[in-house]
């Protein structure tokens, strides 16, 4: 039953260079939502995104949800005393007037329990929940396993 809906969502956002579009909710600007391709669905996927708070009041990202993962979670990679680990993050602060990035080596969305292989060139929706601004659903672009981020300067419109 869920598969056709999922397929429809995937095709809906399966357009190139989606990671270079900007989405807004309240005073928040959401950009560069991307993920890495996976081999099958047995290993966790990842979500990276940049959030700019153009307002004068602090907010925070408190949750993520997506149809492609049964258990998505906010994580933070921490390298301490030469050892990397990735504890859960209860929330990611989005201070007034600042941009925070979920980016390689720091905060990331950990997409556990993938329901499908994440294929390069495709996309999937993710719903970001903010403490004050509420929910916004944005498309995430799946880049190659070797990607370090979307190349928006060369993404000609």
């Amino acid at each position, binding site marked *: 039953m869920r598969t056709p809906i999922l397929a429809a969502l995937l095709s809906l956002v399966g357009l190139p260079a989606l990671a270079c579009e900007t989405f807004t909710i309240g005073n928040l600007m959401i950009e560069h939502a991307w993920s*890495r391709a996976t*081999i*099958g669905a*047995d*290993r*966790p*996927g*990842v979500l990276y995104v940049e959030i700019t708070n153009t307002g004068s009041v602090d907010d925070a990202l408190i949750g993520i949800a997506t149809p492609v993962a049964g*258990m998505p*979670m906010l*994580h933070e*990679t921490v*390298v301490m*005393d*030469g*050892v*990397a*680990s*990735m504890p*859960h993050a209860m929330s990611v602060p989005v201070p007034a007037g600042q941009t925070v990035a979920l980016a*390689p*080596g720091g905060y*990331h969305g*950990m*997409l*556990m*329990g993938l329901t499908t292989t994440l294929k390069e060139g495709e996309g999937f929706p993710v719903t970001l929940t903010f403490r004050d601004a509420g929910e916004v659903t944005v498309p995430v672009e799946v880049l190659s*396993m*070797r*990607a*370090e981020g979307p190349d928006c300067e060369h993404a000609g419109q």
Partner: protein
Amino acid sequence: MRLTTFQKALWAAAGLACLAYGTWVLVADPATPPRAEAAFRPVFSLPDAEGRIRTEADFAGKHLLVFFGFTSCPDVCPTTLSEVAQVMDDLGPDADKVQPIFISVDPARDRRLGLAAYTSAFHPAILGLAGDEVQTRAAAESFHIYFERQDDAAAPDGYTMSHSPALYLIGPDGDWLRQFAYGTPASDILNDLRSRL
């Protein structure tokens, strides 16, 4: 522009300060072996995806780029493997003088999920090794690296791994040469390698 003696002295002092700082960083990093162990030679004996035991002796004459990680790690490990892949691409004809090796710190699960498919998705030159608990511990101790299984009810299979994320460079005679801290850009690694090949 001609430099005066005083300017030259200033530059020399700045150079020394940089060197001193570099040494301090090296010594301050707990994953770096003590300098007294100049002839420190890490060893390993681990099966590849076909079950063939591979040791450091198999790669004598080559530089080794060694990384410890696990394939269920979506953030740190792909970042480093991507950099290694980029280095291999950029080395061009010198690539056959460098062997990149990925040693699993989560060997049972990585064998089940498929280690070779994972490493080759980044670059076909990367050799994935996954031993048993004893072989893996021995390799990690020999490289002076740390890893630990952490129980985590929310994680897949109920656990995740913490590990040293640096990349280690071993010389053609097996000597430990240096480490690249997590996040070192591929171009820096490439330049360092080029100066040695």
